[in-house]
């Protein structure tokens, strides 16, 4: 594949980097990333991956844009209120970079569709806002041997980790099962500072890009935590849990399944 003059100009700041170069940019253009959730985390991740020239970006979300989303979900604008989030996200991504392909999935991601959804992608970004979805994505990616970036944000805090197939640890190694509904506050109940999605979602995009170009150290075996009030990043070493129900030596989870969700949190 030869680069057009326009591509050479568009991606010049990438291609000048020795870690990216022509080869890395070619890899980005040929890569496929799925973003689950077009919200606080998914918005910056989608924008940066589109700008980076990731060839195919899948975006899954069942909701419409709400006015209360706009404090942090920078991929949507005020005139988008009421529009399907995946449509609004697609328009923003295509506006930044018309040469990428965007696949939209206006659906909740559940056990009955996740396997098919992740199958055609190289890397998955968890930008969801609830524990049932986070555990589902973990299980499906472990079982489907897909690398993914997990993240969570609340108030002035955020954290993320990256799972690599066969290397682990996975999210379930750290947290063996979801907390009961309403035991741990959600952003809707507790709030979240808007820029937190920007910080952590951009770091998820960074992990995807590094994975695709094959450079640097991924957050595999590490949980990166960010406390904005103290302005402190910490990298916590994560061991594998041999007794993990999905990636351990004797797994009991052999197919993705849905946890019940707190009714008030079905809509993000």
């Amino acid at each position: 594949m030869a680069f057009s003059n326009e591509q050479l100009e568009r991606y010049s700041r990438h291609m000048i980097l020795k870690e990216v170069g022509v080869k890395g940019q070619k890899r980005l253009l040929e890569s496929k990333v799925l973003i689950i959730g077009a919200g606080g985390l998914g918005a910056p991740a989608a924008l940066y991956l589109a700008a980076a020239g990731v060839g195919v970006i899948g975006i899954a979300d069942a909701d419409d844009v709400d006015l209360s989303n706009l404090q942090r979900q920078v991929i949507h604008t005020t005139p988008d209120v009421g529009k399907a989030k995946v449509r609004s996200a697609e328009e923003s991504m295509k506006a930044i970079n018309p040469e990428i392909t965007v696949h939209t999935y206006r659906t909740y991601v559940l056990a009955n569709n996740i396997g098919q959804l992740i199958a055609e992608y190289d890397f998955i970004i968890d930008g969801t806002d609830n524990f049932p979805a986070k555990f589902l994505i973990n299980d499906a990616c472990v079982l489907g041997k897909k690398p993914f970036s997990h993240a969570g944000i609340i108030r002035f805090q955020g954290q993320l980790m990256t799972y690599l197939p066969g290397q682990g640890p996975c999210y379930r190694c750290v947290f063996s099962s979801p907390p009961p509904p309403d035991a741990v506050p959600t952003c809707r109940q507790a709030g979240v500072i808007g820029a937190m999605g920007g910080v952590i979602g951009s770091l998820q995009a960074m992990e995807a890009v590094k994975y695709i170009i094959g450079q640097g150290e991924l957050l595999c075996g590490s949980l990166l935590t960010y406390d904005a009030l103290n302005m402190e990043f910490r990298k916590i070493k994560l061991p594998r849990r041999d007794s993990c129900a999905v990636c351990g030596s004797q797994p009991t989870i052999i197919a993705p399944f849905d946890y019940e969700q707190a009714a008030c949190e079905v809509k993000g």
Partner: protein
Amino acid sequence: MNITVTGSTKEYPQGLTVAQLIQLEKVATPEYVTVSINDEFILSATFAEKTLNEGDHVEFMYFMGGGR
């Protein structure tokens, strides 16, 4: 004895258990915190009897469910 908890080293009483440390450090959701000592996960069922030793590195990991 000195223990490093979430990156800062402080003096703690001898024979301190993980459950007592969780209380001392005012962990917000003690029932749902994941704990590692020297990069090994500790089963939550053993928090009450697991004692800490001089030089241990303890980390707390919290559920963060938000994202959209």
